[in-house]
């Protein structure tokens, strides 16, 4: 028999979850999130409510309630809170530019990949992907264009979970491959290869410039491979993409990018000049997975001319109409060509790139 006290607390939890659902349902500013994501959240909440309702039939199971609260309900509430935080920050003048830019980039890549599922965006103390709600967390208070490639790595985790096989929408070829390989760090490497596949050299360059630590080149953690292993896998993936390119010119473009990244990395750490055999094999397999299962337009085009875009970002003029990937690639190309510029100039180019990623906002500003 359930006591009124226990029932009150359970009903309190149910009411809170319903309020969360209500808040999300009424939040029209949920960015460009697709209906599928909203439905996923609704299912999660309904599932937790069902768990709570089951508790009401089994007497005063305080231990069960505590377990449910900490293990199952708290993460859903945290995810919902993160979504709402993200939405509120999107309206903040300081954060609007980066949020809209990140949405534009990630939505374009979701579309180009063919996962058929939008991504939720929020902030945290560091970039990460949260599997439960399919949420990519940006790093607070990073509001520049330079960190966007790292978000594409986080999107790679979602792609690993959701990328179907052509002809079989329920198959998950990346997950199957990761399971089969028996390498707990391979998921991170897939996300790296995905970001490299989609953004070209901008991703490894962003990683090397912003994240890799000179004193920790070879320090793997339980969740992440060493920087050395990761960067060489990126180099090897660019070479694998070159090997599978449709024509010699594209192959030359990818090879050039691979050589540039390799040279940059070996100058930075001096540990080697070529990818290890393992990195070559794993990169080849992961690129092959993307080649087989993702849309062709996801693959970065090394031949696309970006000089006009780079020049426009540098001068702060309205750039020619370009896709989000081109803008991020052009911004990073500019940064690599100007390694010693003062922070103020970096900020100006970043602002120009964010404007280019938010055509409506740019039009509003012009008006």
């Amino acid at each position, binding site marked *: 028999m359930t006591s009124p006290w226990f029932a009150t607390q359970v009903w309190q939890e149910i009411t809170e979850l319903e309020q969360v659902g209500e808040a999300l349902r009424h939040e029209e500013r949920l960015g460009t999130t697709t209906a599928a994501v909203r439905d996923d959240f609704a299912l999660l909440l309904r599932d937790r409510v069902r768990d709570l309702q089951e508790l009401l039939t089994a007497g005063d199971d305080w231990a069960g309630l505590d377990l449910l609260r900490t293990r199952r309900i708290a993460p859903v509430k945290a995810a919902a809170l993160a979504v709402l935080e993200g939405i509120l920050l999107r309206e903040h003048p300081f954060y609007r530019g980066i949020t809209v830019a990140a949405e534009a980039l990630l939505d374009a890549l979701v579309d180009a990949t063919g996962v058929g599922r939008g991504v939720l965006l929020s902030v945290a103390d560091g970039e990460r992907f949260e599997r439960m709600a399919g949420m990519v967390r940006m790093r607070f208070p990073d509001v520049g264009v330079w960190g966007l490639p790292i978000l594409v790595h986080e999107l790679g985790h979602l792609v690993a979970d959701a990328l179907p096989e052509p002809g079989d929408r329920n198959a998950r070829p990346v997950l199957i491959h990761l399971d089969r390989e028996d390498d707990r760090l391979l998921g991170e490497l897939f996300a790296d290869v995905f970001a490299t596949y989609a953004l070209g050299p901008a991703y490894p360059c962003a990683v090397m410039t912003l994240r890799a630590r000179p004193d920790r080149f070879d320090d793997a953690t339980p969740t992440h491979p060493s920087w050395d292993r990761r960067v060489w896998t990126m180099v090897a993936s660019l070479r694998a993409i070159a090997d599978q390119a449709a024509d010699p010119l594209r192959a030359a473009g990818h090879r050039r990018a691979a050589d540039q990244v390799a040279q940059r990395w070996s100058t930075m750490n001096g540990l080697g000049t070529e990818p290890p055999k393992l990195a070559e094999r794993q990169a080849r397999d992961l690129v092959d997975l993307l080649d087989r299962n993702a849309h062709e337009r996801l693959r970065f085009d090394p031949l696309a*001319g970006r000089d006009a875009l780079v020049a426009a970002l540098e001068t702060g003029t309205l750039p020619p109409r370009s896709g989000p990937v081109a803008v991020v690639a052009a911004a990073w190309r500019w940064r690599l060509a100007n390694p010693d510029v003062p922070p103020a100039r970096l900020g100006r180019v970043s602002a120009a790139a964010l404007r280019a990623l938010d055509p409506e906002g740019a039009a509003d500003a012009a008006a």
Partner: protein
Amino acid sequence: MPRLDLLAVRLADLREDVGKVKRVAKLAESRHSRLDGLRSVRKEVRDGLLDARQMIFDFRRGGDAPELELLLGDLEPLLADLERKVARAGVVLDQLDGSMIRLMNTDDVSRRCDEILRSIDTVEADLRAGALDRPAAWSALDRLTDTDCRRLFVDYVDMLGGLTLRDTGLDDRVSELTDGLLEELTAPLRAVPARPADLAGGAGDYSAGSLVMLWFPEWTIWDVPLFGHEAGLAWLRSSPLAEGLLGPAAGPARRGLVADAYGAYALGPAYACSVLLLRMRPGVAGEPSDVERAYVILGVLRALTGDGMSAAVVDLVAECWHGAVAERGVAAVADPARRAELDAFVVAACATLRNITSFRGFDSAQWEVEATEPFAALTGESGSARGATVRGLLNAAWAARMSLPDPHDVAVIQEIADAARALWGPRRAPLPRERLTGRPAQGPQTTRTGGYGLPFQGR
């Protein structure tokens, strides 16, 4: 009665031959007047048609004969059809006129003929006055025959043959395309097909005044970028900018390197494609060696091309060239001191060439402006590229060729060449100013160069 004198016969014969060249040059220049004759016939036909229409009109106004009216009704479409045909003939006539270049070097030929004639006069006068004995006179005659005259005759026969090939379009419009290119580079030159240099009596470095020779078999679209070198030599002759690069007493080797740097700067990756893939010989020594020339060309191009398609083309050419050089067992500019010297030259050349204001170097930004659309048209990604520049077209054609999965597929390569020529559009009439002067347009004021030159001038 004067004795038959062989020396006098030979001198007179030589005078006659040189005079003939002078007359033929004038005749060649009068090719256009024959078209003028056709034009006047066309005018007469059009006038006749107008008269016929007037007569019909007058008859209808004055008479009332239903049977005749029926007949006139049948006649009118016939006249309209005739008018259309005459108009079409006019267009063809204009195109033909456009393809016939005017000989800008008639003065140059006359001057050369006059110089030889004066030399013959001098020999004869000196012989008569006793200032020259007969053996010396024979030597002077031999010298004239073997050097100046021989060269004049060879050049001129080549040039007349080339003019015929151009006029009839048998050169596959390559001369016209080359003219377009030289015009974009504001080089005051015209191209005519000719025999290969080594068959033309060692006249490999000859350019007949303002004419450059397209040595056979360079009559394909793939060879047109080679004329960047000729344009470079013309730039050396005319631009004060070049002096800094040449230095005091520059020899042919240095001039060649500067012309190569100019060609690479002006034509972009297409220059490297033509020169390295089709002409230069890895492993053949020279001063400068082809390996050194290639080093400079690739150096200039790497300084110009950041990334994108132009950089990929340069990478592929370099890879192919270096492979061939290694295969021939030659070290690619092994001496570090020489390499440093060439690197410094490339830096200086790029800095100097960027001061040219009449056109912008074909860097990766220019590739986007000029070659992106023609490339898309050639590879079937999008429709037309009307109004493409020759530089853009040549670079796009080479890039399309380089992107073939099988780079040795002759049939597809030919298809690309044909498509590129088709993109260049119908045969073109010269610009109005050119019609008047008979010279190619020069300077940045030309309509076709102005389109892309102006926004970047004064960099």
